[in-house]
């Protein structure tokens, strides 16, 4: 029997599914980096907070699923706004390393808060996607992964369109290329900072709810943020398209490596890719050549 193409197709679909989630999380990194030049290592934890907010509202307060999702996204946005205004804004102008370390600290604090409120034990999110398997042609796809892929793709398309055509998106692009010039063109740069943090946090919270629905939640699920960081470095810290392509590449690579080489090689493969990219194109596939060295 030759190569099992059907199985390959199923693995590919699963890879695209997790790739879309990676891309969505990577987008959160890119949005924040573009506007404020901060590498926010707390993205993983903000994603976790989003998932736990949803969990608390839907399971704890038994609110309807859609209301819980909406409130969790809003809550994520508020969290981002508060972090930006209360902590990051005061740090602007400090060295990149300092701000980077502060975000790591913020991540630990969020893990602590979640462990105090919800205990460190893993939990399952209320099921709202159903479990009936889906078939694309003959290939089986987990329903949850398919729905996650669709939702993540929609969100990403929304962000990309907003970035292109919405005036706030244009203001963000202008701020990203030259803060001084943006300021003197009448763009309210601090507002752009806030908006980018809010949007990124909403994206992270959304990714958290999707990831939590697929694999369950725990205070350590923020580690997913590290995989997304690899995506961002592969794609380029300041490139939205790079985040999308990088997400799909890493998602597929992890799926293939996990299936054909063995689960334990998944992360190894990802980091070998990271190493290769860093050696060949230190600023990522599509990034511009002047990013901070950390």
């Amino acid at each position: 029997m030759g190569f099992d193409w059907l199985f390959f197709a199923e693995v590919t679909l699963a890879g695209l599914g997790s790739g879309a989630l990676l891309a969505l999380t990577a987008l959160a990194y890119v949005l924040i980096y573009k506007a404020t030049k901060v590498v926010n290592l707390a993205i993983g934890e903000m994603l976790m907070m989003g998932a736990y907010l949803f969990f608390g509202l839907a399971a704890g307060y038994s609110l309807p699923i859609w209301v819980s999702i909406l409130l969790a996204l809003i809550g994520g946005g508020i969290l981002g706004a508060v972090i930006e205004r209360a902590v990051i804004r005061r740090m602007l102008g400090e060295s990149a390393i300092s701000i980077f370390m502060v975000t790591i600290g913020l991540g630990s604090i969020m893990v602590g808060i979640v462990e105090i409120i919800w205990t460190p034990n893993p939990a399952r999110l209320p099921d709202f996607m159903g479990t009936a398997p889906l078939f694309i042609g003959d290939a089986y796809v987990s329903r949850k992964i398919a729905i996650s892929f669709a939702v993540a793709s929609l969100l990403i398309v929304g962000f990309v369109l907003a970035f292109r055509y919405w005036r706030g998106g244009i203001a963000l692009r202008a701020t990203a290329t030259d803060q001084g010039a943006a300021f003197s063109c009448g763009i309210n740069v601090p507002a752009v900072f806030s908006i980018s943090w809010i949007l990124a946090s909403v994206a992270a919270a959304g990714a958290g709810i999707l990831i939590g629905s697929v694999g369950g939640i725990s205070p350590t699920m923020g580690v997913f943020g590290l995989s997304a960081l690899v995506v961002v470095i592969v794609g380029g810290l300041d490139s939205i398209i790079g985040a999308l392509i990088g997400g799909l590449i890493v998602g597929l690579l992890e799926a293939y490596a996990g299936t054909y080489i063995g689960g334990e090689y998944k992360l190894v493969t990802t980091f070998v890719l990271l190493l290769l990219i860093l050696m060949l194109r230190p600023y990522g596939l599509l990034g511009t050549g002047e990013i901070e060295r950390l």
Partner: protein
Amino acid sequence: MQTESGTRPVLEVADLTLSFGGLHALSKVSFAVQEGTIAAVIGPNGAGKTSLFNCISGFYRPQHGAIWCEARDISRLHPPERAKLGLARTFQNIALFRGMTVLDNIKLGCHVHMRTGLLDGLLYWGRAEREEIELRTEIVERIVDFLEINHIRNQPVASLAYGLRKRVELARALAMKPKVLMLDEPVAGMNREETEDMARFILDVKEEWGITILMVEHDMGLVMDISDHVTVLNFGQVIASGKPADVTANPDVIRAYLGAGNVSQLRARIAGRAA
């Protein structure tokens, strides 16, 4: 500050003091720019010219003093608010939005005068869109024609030659429909031909568009040719101001620029050493 003619200047700076730690970048700098004129600020490197510009456009907060634009105290306003009131500027090291086209850069200058805010833009696509279209036709076309950059309108700014980039930056500032246009070294690094073009544009901006100009420039030829009023800064202080011819005759100015005595003394010293 009342002037001879009785009209209030369009831009006034009074007693401006700015220090970074112990370094006085500006001390008690005062001057006024009359409407419809070209005012120049000159001075040796490090005299505080760009610091002065940054104070006026709001990037730096001076410790003392005040800035008025059309009789309104703008000292406490943020840069975007000052931009809305009609202060546009260019930068010494060209600050364009790389990765965007010439046209997009110019359109961002119009950003200041959009009636809808950031969030409105999200909610009312129709209105924001109509505005965009009106803008494109109205202001942008006029500027593109005027500055003769029609042939590069769709090119990314990163691909342009230095002189053209300076021109695009001027175009973006004009798109802000400013009352006062602040030019930070508009002809620095330009060749003779480019400098002459720029001088012509600056004069036309004043005469055809009725915009007041405040510029920092090292090219004394240009300053003498086109400006109506010159202020000289040295070590953060105003050492002379007046008509171009008066200022160049001022011994303090000569000393500031040459560093020692006056021209004849300097010549004598060189001759003495050679002998």
